[in-house]
């Protein structure tokens, strides 16, 4: 029943990298659901495991990785029992992915047309002529002017924003059910970022697809996402709707993250409240909650075992022993640091 409701279901996903003789567990057991037509944001700092989670779902991690999961179901199909061939068919066809750096994601020696036609011919079994026609349509959809001319150009003739549009066109060429956008606007200027975000929003409505947006920018998720998962140290700290995460924050990490950014549009210049210390190393993660060493509210039991999720009536989930955050305490201690 759950499968019918959700496009993607992840249960207890672990991703382990084997590097020399050490095992580094980048994702340490996460649960995530993505519904049909939903935009889900995954927020976290670098090294929190957000990209690795999505690459595990796509199946594009290097050979020295082990993926363990209780359940990994995409559109009713079990990803864990699939052969590499079947997964390859799924990628690019039902799942598209766009990357952070539009400068390196395109082959500099090949024309833009080649990139798009290759995707279409491989996945849709069509002739080159037909592929070219569809490639023009794909570029029109992402609002690139004069698509016929642009197909004959090379990546270096495109600006950063235009390249990101090409990548979006490539990812959407086969009408995927899920688009994974990994920091799609981080390398772009704000005015171009606004254009790309608007485009993604428009395309999501037209194609009725689901989007998973990976970012570290709370501003980007606030305007675009329906639901948000906050990741830290390879674990999901808190999930909820966008409003719940911003206005009914239940996890100290999320709260600390919100306090560390300047408040939008305020005359009052409040001192920022940084999170003391730095993120834990994935090679030697703390025994308990990964945020405990930096948490204002940490209790002795936080340091010994990873807390269980608390499920709230309104659907919000928080991996913390606390049910509520005393914001007064957070402000007081954060300010004095």
């Amino acid at each position: 029943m759950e499968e019918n409701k959700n496009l993607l279901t992840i249960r207890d996903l672990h991703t382990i990298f084997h590097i020399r003789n050490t095992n580094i567990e980048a994702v340490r057991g996460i649960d995530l659901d993505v519904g049909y037509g939903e935009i889900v944001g995954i927020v976290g700092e670098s090294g929190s495991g957000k990209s690795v989670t999505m690459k595990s779902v796509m199946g594009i991690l290097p050979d020295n990785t082990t993926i363990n999961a209780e359940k990994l179901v995409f559109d009713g199909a079990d990803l864990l029992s699939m052969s590499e061939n079947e997964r390859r068919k799924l990628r690019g066809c039902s799942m598209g992915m766009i990357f952070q750096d539009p400068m390196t994601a395109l082959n500099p020696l090949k024309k833009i047309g080649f990139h798009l036609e290759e995707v279409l011919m491989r996945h849709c079994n069509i002739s080159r002529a037909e592929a070219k026609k569809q490639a023009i349509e794909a570029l029109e959809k992402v609002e690139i002017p004069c698509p016929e001319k642009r197909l004959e150009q090379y990546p270096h003739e495109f600006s950063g924003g235009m390249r990101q549009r090409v990548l979006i066109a490539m990812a959407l060429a086969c009408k995927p059910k899920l688009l994974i956008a990994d920091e799609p606007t981080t390398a772009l200027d704000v005015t171009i970022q606004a254009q790309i975000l608007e485009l993604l929003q428009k395309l999501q409505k037209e194609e009725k697809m689901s989007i998973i947006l990976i970012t570290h920018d709370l501003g980007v998720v606030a305007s675009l996402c329906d639901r948000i998962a906050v990741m830290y140290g390879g674990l999901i700290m808190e999930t909820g709707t966008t409003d719940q995460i911003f206005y009914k924050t239940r996890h100290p990490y999320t709260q600390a993250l919100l306090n560390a950014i300047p408040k939008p549009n305020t005359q009052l210049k409040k001192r920022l409240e940084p999170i003391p210390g730095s993120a834990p190393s994935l090679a030697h993660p703390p025994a308990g909650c990964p945020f405990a060493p930096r948490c204002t509210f940490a209790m002795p039991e936080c340091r010994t075992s990873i807390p269980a999720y608390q499920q709230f009536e309104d659907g919000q989930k928080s991996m913390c022993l606390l049910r509520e955050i005393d914001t007064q305490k957070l402000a007081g201690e954060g300010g004095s640091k």
Partner: protein
Amino acid sequence: MNETLIEVKNLKKYFATKNFFGGNKHVVKAVDDVSFTIRKGETFGLVGESGCGKSTLGRTIIRMYDVTDGDILFDGTNIARLEKKQLGVYHRKMQIIFQDPYSALNPSMNVGEIINEPLLLDKEMSSKDRENKIVSLLEKVGMKKDDMERFPYEFSGGQRQRIGIARALSTNPEFILCDEPISALDVSIQAQVVNLLEDYQQEIGVPYLFVAHDLSMVRHISHRIGVMYLGNLVEMGDCDDVYDHPLHPYTQALLSAIPIADPQKARSSTRQTIGGNIPSPMDVPSGCRFHTRCPYAKPICSEVAPVSKECEKGHFTSCHLYDE
């Protein structure tokens, strides 16, 4: 606070790109006719898209680059045309904090050596004095004495940026250029570094030129800001004036593009996106450089370059919309 420390007058910095045979092919007007002042004890924020010349402007002011034309008055002395030898003393007075803490520190030197290097310029300092100074600098930026023996690779990005700050502070500078000092850092670490910079300013009163593209962080830290577009300063004024009542259409578009970290506000605000891309600085548009993307462009905009006018007290813009 109102005393001027640095006055920049009609500053120009052009880069010539060479063609295959060594002849000049194109001239990139990275900074073109920029005038503004930096007052003692203030933070002047400089914002704009990549390629607008904000970093070049900062680096030209501290004379990392030679000046093509114009004047830079540092405490009354024109340093725009000083030779390398005469500049030494000013390089000590003006320091820089770089964007990328990974490449700004020499990987083969330990932290003590990195911070010691600028101190060697002062010939009268004994090695004992220097060591004491290094320890006090490390403590000031929140690090320990033992860190002196460690190497840059042992530190995280935020800690490396602290080392970079300690190095910049070592010569007791009168002015610090912060060239995107937080762009490479995680959100939780950015706040640590910004607070550190603010604390130091309050203690010593050193002015910063804060170059960044994170507009909300610039608003937080700056007293006054300047907005650059293709080598021109299109708007300048008190931080809150510029953010609350932007005059230039480019500033308006830039500010409305900031993603707001508040879902309700984000949903209710109407975004005014500007189309198109920033034109190449090798081939700048005639007249007002923004006219190719400006929603209010008039015929005059493509012909005559607007001059900077004071529209409100201390709030300057160069746009034909505000011509009398």
